[in-house]
């Protein structure tokens, strides 16, 4: 049961134990679509983090005031508002970045992780706790995007954050920046994390 106490688990849950991408497999559309370069992944991660933080805070603040029957509609309106704000702000900061991210900024609305957190968490706990949890979840999401984005950029373009790593003769592994590459790299990371988790559990079992 969710109580109001804030523990370190409130924050770390999203980063590691229940990482939205690697454990819960939520919000896969932007995860696979925009992680073909590190900078896109970072921008997408931060935009999602902002939307998650602000919508979690607001949902938590008005959680006792919204009739249960209309809560989903209200959550979606709140999320859509913040996404529109992010959309304009990114256009104001850098048109190049905005063009690089294409339609995926608007699609944050449809990111099930954000609605999921609003429904399953923020609407049941006080604002401070919701905020801390959202921060953890958003960071976990950003880190996961960066994991994918950096590997795909290094393999697919031979660069990292736009800097050439291997010189002129590097034969770019184009498939890695294409959609299939997203699945390959995601699969690789999932394998790695599951393996780490299992090894840890086995160690704990043998030490007991």
């Amino acid at each position, binding site marked *: 049961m969710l109580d109001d106490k804030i523990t370190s688990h409130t924050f770390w849950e999203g980063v590691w134990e229940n990482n939205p991408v690697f454990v819960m497999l939520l919000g896969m559309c932007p995860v696979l679509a925009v992680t073909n370069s590190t900078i896109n992944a970072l921008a997408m991660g931060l935009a999602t983090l902002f939307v998650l933080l602000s919508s979690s805070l607001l949902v938590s603040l008005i959680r006792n005031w919204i009739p249960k029957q209309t809560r989903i509609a209200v959550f979606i309106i709140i999320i859509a*508002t913040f996404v529109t704000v992010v959309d304009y702000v990114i256009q*104001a900061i850098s048109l190049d970045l905005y063009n690089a991210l294409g339609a995926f900024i608007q699609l944050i609305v449809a990111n099930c992780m954000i609605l999921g957190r609003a429904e399953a968490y923020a609407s049941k706990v006080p604002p401070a706790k919701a905020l801390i949890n959202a921060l953890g979840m958003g960071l976990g999401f950003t880190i996961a995007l960066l994991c994918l984005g950096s590997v795909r950029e290094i393999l697919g373009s031979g660069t990292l954050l736009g800097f050439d790593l291997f010189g002129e003769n590097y034969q770019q592994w184009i498939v890695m920046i294409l959609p299939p590459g997203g699945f390959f790299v995601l699969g690789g990371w999932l394998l790695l994390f599951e393996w780490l988790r299992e090894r840890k559990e086995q160690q704990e079992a043998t030490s007991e």
Partner: protein
Amino acid sequence: MTDTQTTGQPLEKPSSLRMIVSLTLVSVLSGMAVVMVYLYTRPIIDENKRLAIEAAVLTVIPDSAGFVPFELEDNTLRPATDSPGKGQLFYAGYDQQGQLIGLAAPANAQGYADKVYIIYGYRFDCECITGVKVIKHAETPGLGDKVITDKDFVANFDALDARVAADGSALRNRIVTVKHGTKSNPWEVDAISGATITSRAIGRALDIGAGLLLPQVMKFRQQLEDHQP
């Protein structure tokens, strides 16, 4: 689900009025928030767009130091105003001495996901297209957007032949996009393999845009030359 679980009592039904009021209130507040952010960011976004166009115009006409926007409508040429009409907008580029050297104009064509918007530059001395810059696109990241970064593709537009036919009605050779590695004429655009549709979109944008604009502009060349930036 949670109500029955947390309180152990069945869900109490709120009045319709309360639902309507809460939804209306949230929507109105959201609308207001969006409008406020829009009003605040619009001048910044417009300025960004203007700077992007300015930078693009100066890059696609090499050696240009300044430019003047013009509008061509119904066979008349006039300096463009802030409220553009239905005519074709273009930017006449001048060098440091104020000599007319070229022009830049926006063009677009349907790409893979949406229209690809470009600005291309044209020089009068070589009668060729000297640069293409993509202003806005929604092509696949990592694939279609290679038309911006691919060095070989960009090199297509170092001097792409765009001579106007002798009778002044059209381009002498229509600009066409050809399969990667088969470019044999100076008016052909060598496509990127893997981004053929976007490559073709750029070729078509040039063909349509320059094909319509350049023959008309030639009639006003003297007027453009007399105009000092």
